[in-house]
């Protein structure tokens, strides 16, 4: 796509006439941009090819339906896959209402004062905090003080903290795209602020909020660092039966396999990475699908 960019006929419109270097500058810049693109995409392709060669032979029903094992060819990712699924589901349940609520307050209720400014700056900062820090916070607050133990719930609460800033920022962006005129029209016919938000702002902003939330959750599913201090386990040969059950997750299982000496486990790690990639892809596709669906309904 980039290679076909046509050069605009600048020479004719330019009042100062031709400058000999400009055409070359244009070509050079285009070359630099293409190189940047090729470098990025080729790294991605290299990674994909590499894990595909190792991992695809291992991808079969046994791999998806078995628990971890000392024998690489018998080992599977069932507990990790289900663990990751439950984790992301719970994270969404916790983070979505809190995140959207906070965004509504900041966007619709909070005045433009020093207090809301401090909150805004802090949320922006939180989005940049390394994820391991959330893990340490979660260990102390959820695992130890709130006695959730090393459970799915503790993991989900920690990941919820991690994705909250992203959900808040995405939700605010979405609400900001709702024209002021709609709010004013609503107020003009006597609606309260809550009615305006409930019947006008939220429905219009909803596709954007949903997309932002799913993208934030798809970041959460790939995270290993915050789960390690929380106590995500490596060997779990059962499925969680409650939010307080111990758990493992895909990145943790992959990380464990990659550090084992036998080649068979390295292949399992590659196959596990493919499964994680497919899950991520499905989530992102889901986000796009939901957005399109709701947008059609509303217009």
């Amino acid at each position, binding site marked *: 796509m980039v290679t076909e960019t046509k050069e605009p006929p600048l020479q004719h419109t330019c009042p100062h006439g031709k400058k000999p270097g400009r055409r070359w500058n244009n070509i050079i810049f285009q070359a630099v941009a293409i190189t940047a693109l090729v470098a990025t995409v080729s790294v991605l392709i290299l990674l994909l090819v590499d894990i595909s060669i190792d991992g695809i032979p291992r991808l079969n029903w046994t791999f998806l339906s078995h628990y971890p094992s*000392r024998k690489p060819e018998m080992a599977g990712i069932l507990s990790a896959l289900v663990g990751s699924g439950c984790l992301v*589901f719970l994270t969404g349940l916790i983070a979505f209402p809190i995140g959207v609520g906070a965004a509504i307050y900041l966007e619709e209720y909070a005045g433009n004062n020093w207090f809301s400014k401090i909150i805004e700056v802090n949320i922006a900062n939180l989005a940049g905090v390394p994820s391991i820090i959330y893990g340490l916070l979660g260990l102390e607050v959820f695992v130890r003080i709130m006695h959730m133990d090393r459970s799915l719930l503790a993991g989900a609460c920690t990941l919820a903290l991690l994705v909250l800033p992203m959900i808040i920022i995405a939700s605010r962006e979405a609400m900001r795209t709702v024209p002021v005129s709609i709010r004013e029209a609503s107020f003009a016919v006597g609606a309260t602020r809550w009615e305006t938000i409930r019947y006008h702002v939220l429905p219009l902003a909803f596709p954007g909020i949903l997309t932002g939330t799913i993208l934030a959750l798809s970041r959460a599913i790939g995270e290993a660092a915050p789960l390690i201090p929380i106590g995500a386990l490596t060997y779990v040969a059962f499925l969680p039966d409650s939010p307080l059950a111990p758990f493992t997750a895909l990145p943790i299982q992959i990380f464990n396999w990659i550090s084992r000496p036998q080649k068979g486990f390295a292949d399992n790690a590659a196959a596990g990475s493919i499964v994680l990639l497919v899950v991520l892809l499905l989530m992102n596709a889901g986000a796009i699908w939901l957005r399109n669906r709701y947008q059609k309904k509303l217009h």
Partner: protein
Amino acid sequence: MKRFILLHVCFLAAAFCISAPVKPASAELEGLIKVDGSSTVYPITEAVAEEFQIPHPKVKITVGISGTGGGFKKFGRGEVDISDASRPIKPKEAELCKENKIEYIELPVAFDGLAVMVNPKNTWCDSLTVEELKKIWEPEAEGKIMKWSQIRPEWPDKEIRLFGPGVDSGTFDYFTEAICGKSGASRGDFTPSEDDNVLVQGIATDEGALGYFGVAYYDANQDKLKLLGIDDGNPSNGNGPIKPTLETVLNDTYKPLARPIFIYANKEAAAKRPEVAEFIRYYMINSAPLVKEVGYIPLPERAYFLAYDRFKRGITGSVFGGEDSKGKTVEQLLSKEEH
């Protein structure tokens, strides 16, 4: 929108409703056994847990990897029932257990040989003495011992590049104690990694490399590495340089780099919960073939018997950690109380 919120509330309610566990009528064992600790011991515990769950499907076992130190921290707080350890408990960790009134039973489960390796292209070096290893790795060597010729004058004037496990691992603690005399005493200018596969790659691609890690990783990468013999200068336990093999570790001649590795069991948990006691019994009786399968060296049969006997009699404390444990075999240490 409305439906979505309703759905959300339903899910929330469903997710937080924890169904009460239903007790079966039979006396089948059930419960949750939590194990955490060393990544070195992990493959053994994983194998035993996997086998144990076949006759006891209702017992849930979780095994985590937090390193030996991390495992003892959780064990000392009573957060786990069993701690995997690649070295004996340290006084500080024993102190934590005491503070929280946790009594522990120390059970050796296997031997791990630490292999010292060079690149296969290294033609000059086939063995090292303990003295030479100390000269290379001691803290004073930092920035000074940089070439192979400094170790033996006849060796080439090539740069020596060192690879070893990260400072948080029990393997690092053990190696530094065995070679430099003090746990943690090591030069700092080597390439450390918690992931032994990174060390394998490092040694396999660098002609001047020297490194150490568990022998299981050497076994899986024999074509990429060259194993060195180690000479401890003591002819009474084998003359000359000795390489780590099943025989040399078992007959106690691969010295000083063969070490026992352990599990530590919470005495109270084992006494009160039959599933924990049964798991440990199963571990002691069945681990020998599993230990071999995952790349470690099983203890002599009698050692497992003695260890299980200590467990049955509830003998707490550590016999492997003290100063007077040096130079004694596992069996001698385990039967200490019997004298």
